[in-house]
């Protein structure tokens, strides 16, 4: 039986005797593990942020924008010229097989007044199914209904930011807010959603029935017109076909000839997010791979020092063998020494890596996430490095001939 506690003690002492050498050997492991931990934390943080934003947008989304207005040869950008209509929305819903649902939007930045408080916000006129497409439930009160759209009732749903800024803690349900001097009754509050992928506060908004918006808020110019159509595809795999079907349908409905440009714009949000996510993953993997090269270098450093140590202590090995140490005892002694170097180095590297990630977070302002799995991975990796690179020197020590070893000077 190997006397493990005693052997650990011997190994620890050997490391303490050569403090400087042990510290420098560990440094390789410390840097390697710290680099891996930091890289993984930064990568996971970035990936997580993108995933959260994706979730906040709703899944499998396409956005169809109205075309660009052209004034004297200068084109104004997507959505400046309303070319889409309520009927286009209905057509997309009904005629595109890859589409599950579609909802129109008219929007504009307007001032909302309650009592003596006011706040400029994005007013969105839409239909009730929008909340399902965006996966955005009402947290209090009730959403508006198709009936509200048909009769253009003056009701609204408030985003959380608006509740905070206008009502200052009072209960908004049933209260009346004024937009462009039109009174709207608050019937519901939208659940808090946070930032969208471009960093915009999605809760700084107010939802009204689209018809009410068209008639009362955005003027006759926008009657029956919509700026954006939100489309939910049946599944992630249907996104591409949905995009093609919508493009074909709208070109046909808008009578656009084969050589003419579209007067609308389809954007595949989910795919954009997915590619951003996979780009982040690729970069994270790459950086971690580069960082783990330094772990390998650290391991080689351990092996190098252990070989020197075995040679230096040949006589000690001979004495130990003479008094009864079996080859397994000697092998364990040096293996544990290598393992201690790599594990202590690994532990310090984890601490340094966490600190490094925090510094990165506060300097760059990007979120970092340190997962338990990355810590376990780094620790396991350093243990593996210790065993792998420590085995050969330990084996070499255990195979020494006691007579030769005792003669060594």
């Amino acid at each position, binding site marked *: *039986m190997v*006397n493990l*506690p*005693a052997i650990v003690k011997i190994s620890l*002492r050997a490391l303490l*005797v050569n403090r400087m050498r042990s510290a420098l050997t560990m440094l390789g492991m410390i840097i390697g593990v710290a680099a891996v931990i930091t890289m993984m934390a930064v990568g996971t943080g970035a990936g997580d942020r993108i995933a959260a934003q994706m979730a906040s947008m709703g899944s499998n989304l396409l956005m169809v924008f109205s075309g660009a207005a052209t004034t004297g040869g200068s084109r104004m950008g997507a959505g400046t010229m309303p070319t889409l209509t309520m009927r286009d929305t209905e057509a997309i819903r009904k005629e595109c097989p890859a589409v599950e649902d579609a909802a129109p939007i008219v929007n504009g930045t307007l001032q909302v007044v309650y009592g003596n408080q006011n706040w400029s916000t994005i007013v969105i006129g839409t239909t009730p199914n929008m909340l399902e497409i965006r996966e955005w439930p009402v947290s209090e009160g009730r959403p508006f209904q198709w009936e509200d759209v048909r009769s253009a009732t003056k009701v609204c749903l408030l985003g959380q930011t608006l509740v905070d800024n206008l009502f200052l803690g009072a209960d908004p349900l049933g209260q009346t807010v004024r937009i462009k001097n039109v009174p709207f009754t608050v019937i519901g509050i939208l659940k808090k959603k946070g930032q969208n992928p471009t960093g915009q506060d999605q809760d700084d908004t107010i939802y009204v029935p689209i018809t009410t918006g068209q008639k009362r808020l955005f003027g006759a110019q926008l009657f029956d017109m919509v700026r954006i159509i939100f489309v939910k595809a049946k599944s992630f795999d249907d996104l591409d076909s949905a995009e093609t079907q919508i493009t074909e349908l709208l070109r046909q409905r808008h009578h656009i000839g084969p050589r003419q440009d579209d007067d609308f714009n389809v954007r595949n949000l989910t795919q954009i997010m997915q590619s951003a996510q996979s780009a982040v993953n690729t970069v994270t993997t790459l950086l971690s791979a580069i960082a783990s090269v330094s772990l390998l270098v650290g391991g080689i450093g351990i092996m190098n020092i252990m070989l020197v140590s075995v040679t230096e202590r040949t*006589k*000690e090995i*001979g*004495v*130990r*063998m*003479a*008094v*009864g*140490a*079996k*080859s*397994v*005892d000697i092998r364990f002694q040096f293996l544990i020494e290598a393992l201690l170097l790599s594990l202590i180095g690994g532990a310090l590297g984890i601490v340094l890596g966490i600190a490094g990630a925090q510094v990165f977070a506060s300097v760059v302002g990007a979120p970092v996430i340190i997962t338990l799995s990355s810590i376990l991975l780094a620790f396991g990796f350093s243990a593996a490095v210790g065993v792998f690179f420590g085995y050969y020197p330990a084996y070499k020590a255990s195979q020494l001939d*006691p*007579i030769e070893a*005792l003669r060594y000077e």
Partner: protein
Amino acid sequence: MIAVENIRRVYTPGGTPVVALNDVSLNIGTGEFVAVMGPSGSGKSTFMHIIGCLDRPTSGAYRLDGEDVSGFSKDKLAEVRGKKIGFVFQGFNLIPRTTAVENVELPMLYNGFEAKERRRRALEALITVGLEEKADRRPNELSGGQQQRVAIARAIVNDALIMLADEPTGNLDTKTSQEIMELFVRLNREAGKTIIVVTHEPDIASYAKRTVRFRDGNITKDERKW
């Protein structure tokens, strides 16, 4: 105790066989104090290595304490060394930067003793060699004679049957050499230890009760003093 029959040890460094021991037979009984003498190259060191289970004979039988160990594996020999043999070397061979008492504990480390028991027995052995006050000193803080006493304590701590001393006074001055040899005599007389000392100095050999001489791989003389 030690029964060696027709052992032969041939080395083949680089292909050419070199006969180190040529048909040696010897019996050593319990409680004997034997001096092994001979010029360098006479085979006395090889004989010591085989007796001490550090080496195996090419042919012949070696029975130690009734057990034929000539065919034992390396690890089995290590076990025998740990339990039955105590070594004392010319260069003391203490482990540096390790206290005297820990050096004495060393053989028990590989023998499954509890930490407390190891310490108790190690201190006892240090008392036997008269060095209990230096238990916490490191080898570099001890004189040559004191270091050799620590080594002797290490050799007796396991209640070994045999103590093998290879030129134990080679690095010591005359006065200290006498003290060390007197310690061996005392251990032999009072504790009944079987002691085998390899030396080329007749003065040292004169402490032993029996002298065995080697020359060219053979025993040439085996005489008892008293």
